[in-house]
């Protein structure tokens, strides 16, 4: 498995894909994009890495445990933003409560930014987890095993 061209190309692509994912993530509140798309793109870079360098190498860089934590933290970002607005005196997901004195609804902006960030995190880790689990399974199992 020593494909020089593949490895060099993958290394070149890896960082731009991540960057693009971040662009899609943070541009999501103005243009097309958002957490879901960004999360998938982010995961794609790791999947590319796994395809070229092997699953083991990728799992060294991004272990399953980290993904699990990211998954949870993402949801906490998402639900927590909604909950924080409740604590601040608004309704659930009433983002205006995040910036009560703003005249141009800055709270909405902050709220959606945080929520999308959480979504992106969760989608990224979930996609990669799904990939890990499908790719990481034994292709054939021993008859003894089942």
């Amino acid at each position: 498995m020593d494909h020089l061209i593949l490895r060099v190309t993958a290394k070149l692509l890896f960082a731009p894909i991540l960057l693009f994912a971040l662009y899609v993530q943070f541009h999501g509140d103005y243009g097309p994009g958002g957490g879901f798309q960004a999360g998938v793109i982010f995961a794609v870079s790791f999947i590319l890495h796994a395809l070229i360098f092997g699953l083991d190498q990728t799992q060294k860089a991004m272990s399953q445990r980290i993904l699990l934590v990211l998954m949870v933290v993402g949801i906490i970002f998402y639900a927590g933003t909604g909950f924080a607005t409740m604590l601040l005196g608004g309704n659930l997901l009433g983002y205006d409560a995040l910036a009560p004195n703003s005249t141009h609804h800055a709270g909405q902006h902050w709220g959606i930014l945080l929520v999308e960030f959480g979504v992106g995190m969760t989608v990224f880790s979930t996609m990669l987890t799904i990939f890990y689990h499908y790719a990481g399974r034994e292709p054939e199992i021993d008859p003894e095993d089942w």
Partner: protein
Amino acid sequence: MNLIEQLPALPIITPLLLAPITILLPKGKISWLYATAISWLIFFFCAMLLHQVYMHGPISYFLGNWAPPLGIEYRVDLANALLLFLISAIGALVFPYSYASIMAEIDERQTPFFYAALLLCMTGLLGVTITGDAFNVFVFLEISSLSTYALVALGARQDRRALTAAFNYLVMGTIGATFFVIGLGLLYQATGTLNMADMQGKLVGLDNRMVQSGFAFIFVGMGLKLAMFPLHLWLPNAYAYAPSSVTAFLAATATKVALYVLIRFFYSIFHAANGIDIGSLFATLQYVVMPVAVIGMFVASLVAVFQDDVKRMLAYSSVAQIGYMLLGLSLGSEAGLSATMVHMFNHALMKGALFMAVGCVVFRLGGHRISHFTGLARRMPWTAGAFIISGLSLVGVPLTVGFVSKWMLLQATFEVGQWIPSFLIVASSLIAVVYVGRIIEIMLRSPDPDNPLPSVKEAPLLMLVPMWILVIANVYLGLQTDLTVDIAKGAAEAFDLVVRGAR
């Protein structure tokens, strides 16, 4: 934060926020304690919600302060407050129960995932119930369904058929949900709104094929989800092979929620939008729902008689009981509707207790075939007692809740002059006597002196207490009929209340 003001959001946001953390906790006791605490917290919120609604009338909560119909609305009236209370109560009982049971039935490493999935399932069911937004129903339904598929599949360690059962459930459930979405799309196209109350208002005077096909899609989709008789094929296997506590939870809640959605659409939206479609709605009720309900009652009960597997038998009995609920709903009267509400509540109590008893047997004897129940009255007297009492309640013996709901159903059928269904209710109850009696007979059978069965310990207290709470509720609410009947009547009125409010 004003607790009372934010109350409708709390049963949803609390588990959504806290459930994922469960999977990071160490396996076994800690994650169990954590999940149980959450379930009790939700129960507390739901009980407060029911109290608030009972005292002060329906509550409307706007997500993100966006007023409906543009924003999403959580709307709690007596009908869904009752169901919320029921779901959270069953949840609060199933979580303590599941500790020992789950340790025995699934891999210990999976327990945090199990609790997280069960909490999410509960969140989904609560969300379906509480929301006033039609598309939200779909989203929450899928949250609960997806976690249900995973939960059912966890039974694979006991019996690999859980996997195929979960797969079938997934296929049927997804088709059902997709049908529901198609129906919603048609209604959205016709009305331009997704808010239920608003949709009802917009549907007034609209009676075209688009609305009617939307109605049909929703009916079939929800029929799949609630295991209406010919569409019930996923249910027996899913219930039979899922882990015991999952079965207890699902049997008590999942189909009820789908039924609730159907009632919501039938009565609060289509029926209430008077003039539209009223002819075809009643035609559907009379010529589709009622026969389906009656046939389901009979066929499923008969199939239940011939099952060797107690869990499967109870699952078929659930299909039959759904027939009772659909019958009440198909009468199109307030009495029928309140009978359905009461039966939804009561059936959850008895099926919950029955499946919990089966879970105790599985825990001690390792299986749920009829043979495992031989002489159970002597070997595990508390479990057997719980099974017998709730089994009698399932049959509809006086002094139990089963009697109350069947009596109400009979009254409702008399009231509209439907003599044939009322006769059939009694007849199918007699079949229930057969299948429940069969198990009770085996349990009470005196031990064979030549070949004595090895004695087993009674199930642990943590499993017995939740089960007996349900059993006592079965009897207590069978004696104190006013409480449930009052609330259910109010709930049935709540469906009509939406009408009056909108007009």
